[in-house]
C-alpha cells in the first residue's frame, strides 16, 4: 500500500512540477474561441447581424441613429443595405487586423511572437524585452523602451 501511495505521489508531483523544471516552458496555446464577434449598434451589443436585423424587424433595435419609424418596405430595404454594409465592414476589419511579417510577408497567427517562416519578431512586441504592446502605447510598459511608430500588435 505504501509503495502505491509513494508511486502516486511521485507521478502527481512529476506531472505538476514538470512545467517548472522546463526552462522553455511556454504558455499552452489557448483553444480557439467559437463565439462569433458581437455587433454594436446604437449602444446595444447584438450577437450577429442577423440578430440585429431581427430586432429591427420586431421594432426594437435602433438603426444607428434615432430615426422616425420607417414603413415596412423602407425598413426591409434598410435592413438589407445594413446587413450588407456591416458584413463588409467586419470582413475588412478582420483582414486589416491580420499583421504580416515585415520581412517575408507571412501573416502572423494569434499568439505568435515570431514569424513562423523567417523568424523575424512580431512588430507588436518590444525589441528589448519581448513584452507585447497594447494599441496606442508609445513606450514599452515592461522596460520603458520607446516604440517607433504607432504599430498595432
Amino acid at each position: 500500500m505504501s509503495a502505491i501511495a509513494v508511486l502516486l505521489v511521485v507521478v502527481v508531483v512529476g506531472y505538476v512540477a514538470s512545467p517548472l523544471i522546463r526552462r522553455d516552458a511556454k504558455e499552452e496555446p489557448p483553444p480557439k474561441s467559437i463565439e462569433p464577434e458581437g455587433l454594436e449598434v446604437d449602444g446595444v451589443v447584438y450577437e450577429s447581424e442577423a440578430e440585429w436585423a431581427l430586432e429591427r424587424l420586431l421594432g426594437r433595435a435602433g438603426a444607428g441613429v434615432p430615426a422616425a419609424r420607417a414603413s415596412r418596405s423602407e425598413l426591409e430595404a434598410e435592413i438589407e443595405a445594413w446587413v450588407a454594409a456591416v458584413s463588409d465592414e467586419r470582413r475588412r476589419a478582420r483582414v486589416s487586423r491580420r499583421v504580416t511579417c515585415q520581412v517575408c510577408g507571412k501573416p502572423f497567427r494569434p499568439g505568435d511572437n515570431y514569424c513562423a517562416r523567417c523568424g523575424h519578431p512580431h512588430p507588436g512586441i518590444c525589441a528589448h524585452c519581448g513584452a507585447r504592446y497594447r494599441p496606442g502605447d508609445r513606450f514599452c510598459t515592461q522596460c520603458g523602451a520607446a516604440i517607433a511608430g504607432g504599430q498595432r500588435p
Partner: protein
Amino acid sequence: MTAEAGRAALLLALALAVYAATAAVLGVRLRRPGLLQSARRASRATFALVSLAVAALLGLLLRRDYQVLYVYEHVSSSLSNLYAASALWAGAEGSLLAWLWLLSLCALLVSRGRSTRAKEVEAYALAALSLTQGFFALVLCTVSMPFVLLPARAADGSGLHPLLQHPAMICHPPALLAGYAAYAVPFSYAVGALVSGRFDGQWLKSVRRWSLAAWAALGLGILMGARWAYVELGWGGFWAWDPVENAALVPWLVGTALLHAMAAWERRGVFRLSALALAVGTFVLCIVATSMARGDLVGGSLHTFAPSRAGLLFYGYAATLVVACGWLLLWQRRRLRSEVLQEAVSREGAILVGNLLLVGLALAILVGTLFPVLTQALWRVRIALGDAFFGRVTWPLALAGLLLMGVAPVLGWRRTDAESLRLALVPLGAAVATWLILLALRACDARTALAFAVITFAGAGNLQELLRAVCAWQRLRTLAPWAVEAGHLHTNRRRYGMLLVHVGAAIVAASIAGQGLGGTERETTLQRGQSASIGRYEVRFEALSSEMLPAKERHAATLGVYSGDRRVATLRPEYNYYHSVRGYVAEVAVRSTVREDLYVAVTSIAEDTSTATFRLRVNPLMVWLWIGGAMIVPGTVLILWPGGLAAAWAAAGHLGRRA
C-alpha cells in the same frame, strides 16, 4: 486498503488544491507561464485524485464493506446496487465528497476552456476555484471524513432510510450539488475580475453559459426534490417551506437575477457591479444551503443530516467570502460604475426592477428561514415563521415578477417606442378576460382570479413574442438569406430558449395558483367494501394484501376510483413496515390528469387489517407543475447547445464567398 487509498487521495488533493491556488496567483503576478501551467496541471491532478476518492467510496459501498462507518450507516445487504451507489450522496460525508468532485470537474473544464484575452482574470479565477476545492478537501479530511474505519467489521449495515429509496432521490441530490458546484465558476470569475480589475467582459460569455447551466441544474434539483416530497412523504403537498428546501430556493432566485444582470451587462454594459455582487452572493448562498443541510442551526427540517461541526465551518467560510468579496467590491466600485439608465421603460429598466423583486423575494425567504436563529440571538426565544408568513410575503412579489415577465419581452434595449408598448395590449386583454371569466364562473376567490390574470398576462406576453419572432424570422429569410444562414442557430435559439423558460415559469405559477381552484382534502377510515367521496370522485376500498419481504412488511390497499358510474382507475397505495427504522412508511398512489391529481395515502391500518385510514386529496392542475418545471430542460439546452461553431463556420463560408 481501498479506504486508505481514498483517504490518501483526499489528503493529496488538499495539498494540490492549495498549491494550484498559490501557483496561479504567483504565476500571474510574476508573469511566469511555467507556474501558471503548473497550476492548471495541479487542478487537473486534483480532479483525478478526487475521482479516485469517489471511486474508492463507490467501490466500498457496492462491496458492502461494513468496516467503513459510512458504508455501515448507509447501506445494507438487502439494498439494491442502484440505491447502494446512490448512498454516495445520501450521507453528509458522501454528499460533501460528491460536491468536491463536481467542483473539481468544473475547475477542470475551466482550466481547459480558456479564452484568449482574459488570462489574468482566468488565473485568479482558477486560484479562487482551487481555494474552494481546498476548503472542501480540508473539511473532508478533518471533520467529515467518509473513510473512517470501525474497530471490527459489522455483519450487516443499517441500510438507506426507506424514504430515500425513491428514483427522485437518485437524481435530486446530484442535480442540486451540480448547481451549487457550477455556481462556483461565475463566483471565481467575479473574484478574478475584481482582483485584476478587468471588467471588459471578454470572459462574460462563457461565464453566462456556466451561470445558465448552474441555474438549470439547481432548478431541476429543486423540482425533483418537490416531486419526491409529493409522492414519498404522504402529506399531499410538494413544498413545506422547510429550511433545507428554502435554502436551495434562495440561491436559485438570486441566480435568476444574476442571469438577467449578465444579459444586461453583455448587451448594454450596465449593472456590472450588481452582476459581480450577485455572482458572489449566489455562491455564498449555495455554501449557506450546504451548511443548513448539515448543521442544527435552524433545526426542524425534514431532511437535515446529523448535526456536525462541518455546518459551522461552512458558515465561517461563507462569512469570510462575504467580508473578502464585499471589500473587493467596495475597492473596485468606482471602476464598476456604469452608464445611467437612459429610459426607465426599457429592457434594462425591467431587468433592474425584476432583479430587485427576485433579490427581495430571496431575502424574505432567507430571513423567514433564519428567523428562529435571529430571535434566539436577540431575545433568547425561538420563534419560527409558518406557511402563512411565506405565503403572504411571496405572493405579491411573485405576482409583480410575473407582471414584469409578461411585459419585458416587448421592451427594447435602451428605449422602447409607444408602438412596441401597444403590443402588451394583447396579453393584457387575455388577462382581463381570464379574470372576468373566473369571477363570472365563481370558480375561485378574487385573489386566485387575480393570480390567474397575471399569469395569463405573463404567458400570453411571452407566447406572443415567440410567434412574432418566428414570423419576423420568416420575413428576414427573404431579405437576407445568408445572414439567416449564419445567425439562425446562434441567434434565435437563445431567444426561443428564453421565451420557453418564461412560458414554463408561467405554467408552474399557474399550477401553484391552481391549488386555489377547489382543491380538497379529507382523512377517512374505511372498511373493505366501503366508499368515500372527494371532489367528483368516489373511492372504494376493495382489498388489502400483506406480504413479508426481507426488508419490510408490505401492506398494499386496492382502491377503485369512480367518476359517476364509470370506473376510471385502480390505485394501490402501500403502508409498509421497515425493520431497519422500526416504523411505517407510506407509499402514495396518484392518479394524474391534466385537470387534477387524485392523491391517496394510507395513514394507518387496523391490526386485523379490516379497516384502514386514508388521506384523500384532490390537487387541481398539479401535473402542470412538473410539465412547466421540466421546460427548463428544452429551454436551457436550446440556449446552451454549441451552435456558435456552426454560426462561425457559416459566417466564414459566406464571407469567403463574398470576398
